[in-house]
């Protein structure tokens, strides 16, 4: 990754698509743009790769529809954990889908088929993001005077009863600063490393602030920022993180809806289903609320709970009560929880259990360090261009591209293709069809479609693509093969649908018109 000026050359792109055809095409196209391409057939694998090399990619391009994970979900993860620009792709250009993409934070939405010119300019998203972050960070400045440090300390250490010396404060600040920079590049300065990395600590502060604001419907970035008291953080940083957080929570909400809670937590209100999550940022922070009590209530709480602590030895019993009850928050009186989108996030069975589980919840979803449990089964693959090994076997790696089953199409050098053109009349066709008999009945699909009430005509077999076609006398677009000699069996053809007789295809009792003739003859001759 170049340090100085920005250049699109060598942009590190991760392409995620379950369609092997598109994956191959996109890889080729991106390479032609002089990008460095990594391909991936599964969303989970993509996430694993991204987490493994946190600074290994500049941009992610992903399809919306994937079997193992919704593309929007992947988008969410990437945005939250890694803050990389993500471009969505789909063959479907419906407004609602595009909107969903934008709402989930996609920086662009491309429609398939994708053109070279669209890929040539994707680097702008990377540059834009960098510039934005540099502006954000530098805007606040790192030149902390004593004031700054004091404020910082206040946020961190006050209320903890800790006696913190100036020296220690300074060290902690440096540590925090380092944490917040890209971990793979510890020497980078703020001007070079523009990305705001939401470390666990930072995110915890964020959540605490959010919870503190709680059911106040205006849990806006400004307020959160104020509460967080992280000087170099900007409103924009918080706003974008808030957006992602809301999406994440609303998604969790949906998942939790089906779980039951013995703690008496009611299922979530339906209103926060939209992207605009209102002030119900309460329960995810329920356990952390106690932290927040320790952290941000400057003078009211003397509970010295460290931010990262996962368990509270002596939780405030108020906190554990089902969210419906009032007076669970220090500092304000929550109204009845009508908009508690996040109440259902955590099972409230047991206090310690709850408190234990919450940070883990965050860690798994938000933070970079911990991979999802499902990741462990994947084998690390360092090939620059890889197809997920869990992809279907026929699809081989692009690196060994020539080993793809192209021989169906590429005639071996020694086979000269010949085709004799015949003008076959209709009767000859049906005769031929009767003659060309092959039972591929072992094929399951065949049986299925047969059972779907289709009459089986005089059965014929499949046209093999290994046929030798003599092209010596092509006749415009009427291109017929001498099927008598050249048909061979498909070993794996599900050639069931085409077993219909011609008349059934066209829904009439007679053979088709001459106009349809050549087309249909082609069918009859070339397919089974």
């Amino acid at each position: 990754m170049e340090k100085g000026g920005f250049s699109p050359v060598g942009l590190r792109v991760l392409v995620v698509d379950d369609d092997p055809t598109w994956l191959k095409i996109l890889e080729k196209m991106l390479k032609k743009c002089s990008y460095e391409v990594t391909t991936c057939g599964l969303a989970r694998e993509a996430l694993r790769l991204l987490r493994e090399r946190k600074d290994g990619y500049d941009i992610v391009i992903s399809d919306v529809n994937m079997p193992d994970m919704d593309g929007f979900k992947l988008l969410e993860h990437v945005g939250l954990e890694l803050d990389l620009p993500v471009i969505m792709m789909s063959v479907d250009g419906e407004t609602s889908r595009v909107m969903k993409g934008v709402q989930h934070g996609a920086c662009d939405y491309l429609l398939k088929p994708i053109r070279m010119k669209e890929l040539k300019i994707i680097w702008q998203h990377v540059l834009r993001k960098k510039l934005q972050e540099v502006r954000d960070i530098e805007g606040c400045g790192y030149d902390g005077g004593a004031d700054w440090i004091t404020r910082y300390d206040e946020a961190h250490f006050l209320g903890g009863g800790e006696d913190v010396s100036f020296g220690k404060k300074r060290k902690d600040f440096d540590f925090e600063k380092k944490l917040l920079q890209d971990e793979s590049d510890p020497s980078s300065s703020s001007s070079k490393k523009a990305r705001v990395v939401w470390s666990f600590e930072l995110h915890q502060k964020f959540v605490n602030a959010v919870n503190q604001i709680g059911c106040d419907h205006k849990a806006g970035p400004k307020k959160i920022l104020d509460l967080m008291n992280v000087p170099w953080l900007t409103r924009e940083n918080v706003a974008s993180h808030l957006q992602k957080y809301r999406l994440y929570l609303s998604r969790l909400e949906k998942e939790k809806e089906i779980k039951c809670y013995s703690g008496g937590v009611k299922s979530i209100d339906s209103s926060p289903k939209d992207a605009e999550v209102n002030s119900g940022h309460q329960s995810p922070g329920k356990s952390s609320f106690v932290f927040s009590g320790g952290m941000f209530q400057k003078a009211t709480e003397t509970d010295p709970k460290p931010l990262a602590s996962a368990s509270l030895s002596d939780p405030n019993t108020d906190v554990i009560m089902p969210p419906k009850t009032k007076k669970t928050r220090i500092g304000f009186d929550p109204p009845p929880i009508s908009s508690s989108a996040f109440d259902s996030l955590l099972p409230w069975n047991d206090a310690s259990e709850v408190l234990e589980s919450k940070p883990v919840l965050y860690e798994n979803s938000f933070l970079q360090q911990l991979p999802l449990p499902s990741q462990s089964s994947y084998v690390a693959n360092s090939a620059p261009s890889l197809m997920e090994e869990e992809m279907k076997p026929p699809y081989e790696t692009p690196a060994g591209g020539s080993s793809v089953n192209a021989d169906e199409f590429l005639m071996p050098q020694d086979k000269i293709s010949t085709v004799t053109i015949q003008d076959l009349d209709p009767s000859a066709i049906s005769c031929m069809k009767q003659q060309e008999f092959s039972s591929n009945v072992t094929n399951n699909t065949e049986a299925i479609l047969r059972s779907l009430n289709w009459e089986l005509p005089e059965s014929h077999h499949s046209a093999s693509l290994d046929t030798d076609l003599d092209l010596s006398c092509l006749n415009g677009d009427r291109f017929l093969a001498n099927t008598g000699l050249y048909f061979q069996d498909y070993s794996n053809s599900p050639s069931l649908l085409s077993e219909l007789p011609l008349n059934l295809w066209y829904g009439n009792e007679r053979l088709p018109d001459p106009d349809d003739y050549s087309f249909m003859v082609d069918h009859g001759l070339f397919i089974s």
Partner: protein
Amino acid sequence: MDTLIAQLQRQFRDYTISLYHQGFLDDQFTELKKLQDECSPDFVAEVVTLFFEDCEKLISNMARALDQTGNVDFKLVGSSVHQLKGSSSSVGAKRVKGLCVTLKECCDSQNFEGCVRCLQQVDIEYKTLKAKLQDLFNLEQQIVQAGGRIPQVDI
């Protein structure tokens, strides 16, 4: 020999144009050809092979789903056809793609008869295209073997 090459080249050109005119292929196929270069001389053939494999698999899935009499999972069929639509758009299989749209509509309206009919047509279409492209590639082979160059065909 030259005459043969010229003849083959003309045939190749004519055949290619006819495929476009008859709606078998669209400009995405042209784009694929542009991507082919010395680094990947068989690029188009490889991509097209992948596509047809995908076709086979998806059509088979859909047939199976439709076969569950009384309990047809139209959603599954719908998602498969969506995949096929995406796939066909990758190689410029215009007719296949068009049929996918129709099939999707049948799925959405849970029109069993329509789905069956459509799927059958999709099967026919992709096989037809497969055969035609095979012929095209064969022509290319012949040209090369005769010592000629494969002409650039502008649609």
